[in-house]
């Protein structure tokens, strides 16, 4: 199968990364990959309420993922679903390894991710945006977290599935990766492929993450007028 918009198998969709897009937030970012658009805002670190959530040895990281009702063909009912609850959790697990949460015990950092338009790869776009927003908020980090999904269509490995490609792929593997430490922080998969293919696809995703990482850094440099 030819890729949509005449993309090459190992090519990302057109990427836009912008830091500092929400004036009220302590840090924020917008990431779009093709028609998928995610916006992330970071509030904190601040005193955490309710107090029962406070942790005595580290900062409490709250991640909230939500899709706008108008973001897909069929309207999304506002509020939590089982899917969004799982995504909130894996997003938190993807970001936490990059943060020094032990620096501010009892505090809380909230990361809110809104998907404005969904055309596949929303959790990965959300993680990309959240990571830039955390850096934009001046929160100390070991690394940025870049994220992308990969799949296999007609025997070929596709980077960054979009829209209809997701309906025909043999598998869908979202990956998040810390490029400096070379560690995977998100790995999920559904499909039907061999272990060898899983490994090759994860390698492809890592290459995609490395490209996204450069875009993330660029966005932060532009925002803070660094060369």
């Amino acid at each position, binding site marked *: 199968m030819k890729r949509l918009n005449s993309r090459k198998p190992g090519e990302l969709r057109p990427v836009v990364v912008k830091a500092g897009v929400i004036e009220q937030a302590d840090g924020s970012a917008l990431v779009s990959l093709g028609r998928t658009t995610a916006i992330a805002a970071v509030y904190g670190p601040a005193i955490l309420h309710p107090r029962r959530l406070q942790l005595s040895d580290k900062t409490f990281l709250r991640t909230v993922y939500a899709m706008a009702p108008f973001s897909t063909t069929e309207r999304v009912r506002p509020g939590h679903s089982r899917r969004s609850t799982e995504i909130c959790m894996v997003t938190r697990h993807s970001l936490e390894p990059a943060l020094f949460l032990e620096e501010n015990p009892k505090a809380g950092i909230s990361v809110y991710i809104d998907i404005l338009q969904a055309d596949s790869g929303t959790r990965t776009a959300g993680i990309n945006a959240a990571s830039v927003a955390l850096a934009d908020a001046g929160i100390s980090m070991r690394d940025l977290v870049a994220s992308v999904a990969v799949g296999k269509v007609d025997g070929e490995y596709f980077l960054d599935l979009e829209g209809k490609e997701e309906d025909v792929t043999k598998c869908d593997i979202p990956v998040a990766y810390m490029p400096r430490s070379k560690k995977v922080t*998100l*790995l999920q998969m559904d499909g039907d492929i*061999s272990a060898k293919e899983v490994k090759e696809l*994860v390698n492809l995703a890592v290459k995609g993450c490395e490209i996204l990482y450069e875009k993330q850094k660029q966005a932060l440099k532009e925002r803070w007028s660094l060369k």
Partner: protein
Amino acid sequence: MILQEQYLLNLASKGERIDKRKPDEYRKIVVEKDVIEKAEGSARVKIGETEVLVGIKMDTGEPYPDKPDDGVMIVGAEFSPVASPGFETGPPKEDAIELARVVDRGIREAGTIDTKKLCIKKGEKVWLVNIDIHVLNHSGNLIDAAALAAVTALWNAKMPELKGEKINYEKRTKKLPVKSKPITITFARIGESLFTDPNLDEENVMDMRLSVAVKDDDNICALQKGGIGTLSLEEIGKVLEAAIKKSKVIRKTIK
């Protein structure tokens, strides 16, 4: 707690475990089928002290618009407060939702249920298969136990008879159409070591786990990384290989 953590980490640095198991060794597995008469299918799985019950209930309903001639399967998980001092009543929380969704993905992607055979009238009426996971005792590694119980229950489920509009739950003759036996294998990382089937003590100190669902033909049908730790590419390869090997042994426990 901190003492315990140090103890487990020290052991792990030597590749040893708190209960003397080998890194790729499961606790004793006991599988019982047909334990709930009222259910269309059921199974109880014990892995060590961990105990999970899965029941299948069937009903009829509308198919999804994009799959008009496919039966529908729904997986739910209940962490009953019976099972752990950490569980509370109320709607399912993150971990229960994750458990249900990981088990769902394994069964769905492996094509365990032949959903095409569950169509009653295309676009209007199909069988719904409710797979409910009920945790009876949480002593670690719920994912593998629940996945094993779910597949066992499905393979032994019998469909109620349908007469016109009415479902006769008293008369169950035909077997539920099933095709494959996916097995989910979880590895946890403690320190630098990877251990399969983590018990509760190990789960409390692990920084990461990776669950791998393996099909009968050794293909991988679902993956889920859990926890805030990270994985190297080598570790992913290692876990996949070990999971495939282990799945062949565990699959034999399904009767």
